[in-house]
C-alpha cells in the first residue's frame, strides 16, 4: 500500500504508523461525560467501506495525517495534514 503524504509525496506503507479511526482527533472535554469518552476511545463505527483514520509519517517528515481510505479495497481517497484539518 502507498500513501501520498502531503509533504513528502507518495511513499510506501512501511514509512507510516497507524493509529486508528479519526475520531481520535476530536478529544472530548473533560466533563463531556462517560458516553462521549467511551465513544472517543473504544466504540467504533468500523465500516467496511470508507473510513477516516489517523496515520503518522513516522519514518518520513513526521506529520500526523488524516487519511480517508476504503478499508475493503484499500483505495486511498484522500490524505490531509491532521494539523490543517484541525485548524
Amino acid at each position, binding site marked *: 500500500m502507498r500513501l501520498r503524504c502531503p509533504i513528502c509525496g507518495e511513499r510506501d506503507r512501511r514509512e507510516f504508523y497507524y493509529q486508528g479511526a479519526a475520531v481520535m482527533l476530536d478529544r472530548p472535554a473533560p466533563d463531556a461525560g462517560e458516553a462521549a469518552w467511551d465513544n472517543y476511545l473504544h466504540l467504533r463505527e*468500523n*465500516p467496511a467501506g470508507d473510513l477516516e483514520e489517523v496515520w503518522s509519517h513516522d519514518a518520513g517528515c513526521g506529520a500526523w495525517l488524516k487519511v480517508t481510505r476504503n478499508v475493503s*479495497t484499500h483505495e486511498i481517497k484522500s490524505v490531509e495534514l491532521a494539523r490543517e484539518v484541525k485548524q
Partner: protein
Amino acid sequence: MRFSGLKVLTEGLTGNKGWGPHWRNPEPKPEYDIVLIGGGGHGLATAHYLAKEHGLTNVAVLEKGYLGGGNVGRNTTIVRANYMLPGNSEFYSHSLKLWEGLEEDLNYNVMHSQRGIINLVHSDGQRDAFVRRANSMCGQGDDGAMLDRAGVEKLLPFLDFEQTRFPIYGGLYHKRGGTARHDAVAWGFARSASDRGVDLIQQCEVTGIHVENGVVKGVQTTKGPIRAKKVGMVAAGRSSQVAAMAGMRLPIESHVLQAFVTEGLKPCIDHVITYGMGHFYISQSDKGGLVFGGDLDMYASYASRGNLPLVEHVAEAAMTLMPAIGKAKVLRSWGGVMDMSPDGSFIIDKTDIDGLFVNCGWCYGGFKATPASGHTFAHLLATGNPHPTTVRHRLDRFRTGRGIMDEEATGSQHNLH
C-alpha cells in the same frame, strides 16, 4: 454415521460408496428458539454445545458463505492455555480441557496435537514477565515451565544461538499447548450439531435484525425472514456490521492478520515456537508445511490480504531466529480479518436488547478458544447467565474500567494488542 477405523476399512473395501453427507442441507424454518448469526468455528461450536449440554436443538446457524469459511479456516492452528490475567486464564484453561476431550466428544479427528509451545525469552525483563505468566498458568492448574537457554537448545537445536540480534535467554514451555487441524474443527462441530438436529444453513446472509421495543424478534435473511426467541451474534471479523443491524456500535476495529505456509518439507520443527522480539510464531503441519505468522498489518481492513512490509518483517524474524529454514519456500499467504478489541480480550455478553447476545472481539486468539467460546456462549444463551469463566468478559468493561484484560499491556488502541 459413526466414524471409526473399522468404518474406514469396510468402506475402503466396498468402494467408499457408503459415506453420507457430513451435515444436512435444510431449508430454514420460519422460527427457531435460537438463531446464531455466523457459521464459523464459534457459531458451530455454540450450536453443538446448545444441543449437547442444554438439549436445545430448535436452533439455526445462518452462514452467509460456506461453513467454516472465516477465521477458523484461515489461522495458524495454535491451541494453548498460556494466558496471564484473571479472566483469560480460567477461560483458556477451560478451553484446553475441552480440546483434550474434543475428538471423543465429536467423533471426529481434529488432529489436536499437544506437541508443546515454547515462547522464547530475550531479556531479563521478558523472562520476569513470562515467569509471572507461567505462575498464573500453574496457579490455574495448567502446565507451565521455564526453560533456560540450555533447555531451549536441547529442544530446538536449530535456532540461532550464536548471533541472533536478540539472543535467546530461555523460554516458557507449555507442554499441553500445540495445534489442531483447523478445518476439521469446524467440520466436526458442524457434523455434530447437524446430527443433533441443529439446522446449518449456508449461503444465507443475515440482512437485518428485527427488534421491537427493545426485544429481539428475529432476523431478515437472503432466504427470507426467520423469527427467533434469541439471537446470538457470533460473526467475528464482521461483528461490527452485524451489530450495526441492531443499531449497536461495538468497541471493535477490524484488522487483517496474515499467515503463511511453505511447501511441504520432511519433519524439522516439532513444536510451536514463538519469538516475541520479532512477533513471529511457527509450527509445522502434519503435511510438512511450515505454518507461521506475525503481527497485524496494523491498519483497519476487511480485505483478506496483507501487504509486503509485514510479509518481509515476518520473514526477517524467521531468518534471524532460525536461519536453517532459509530455503523453505513460502507457498501461500493469506489474511484473516480480526475483531480487535480495546484490551485484546474477547466479549461474550448480553446486549441492551433483550434476547440479543454478542460473542466477538477475539482479536487473533479465536481459534484456540473455539470449544470454550461455543461452550460458554451456549451457557449464556441457554441460561441467561454468564459462564463462570466469562464473568469478566463484559461488553461495558471499557466504559467502566472494570475487568480490563490487557495481556499485551498496550492500552486502548485496538491494533496494538
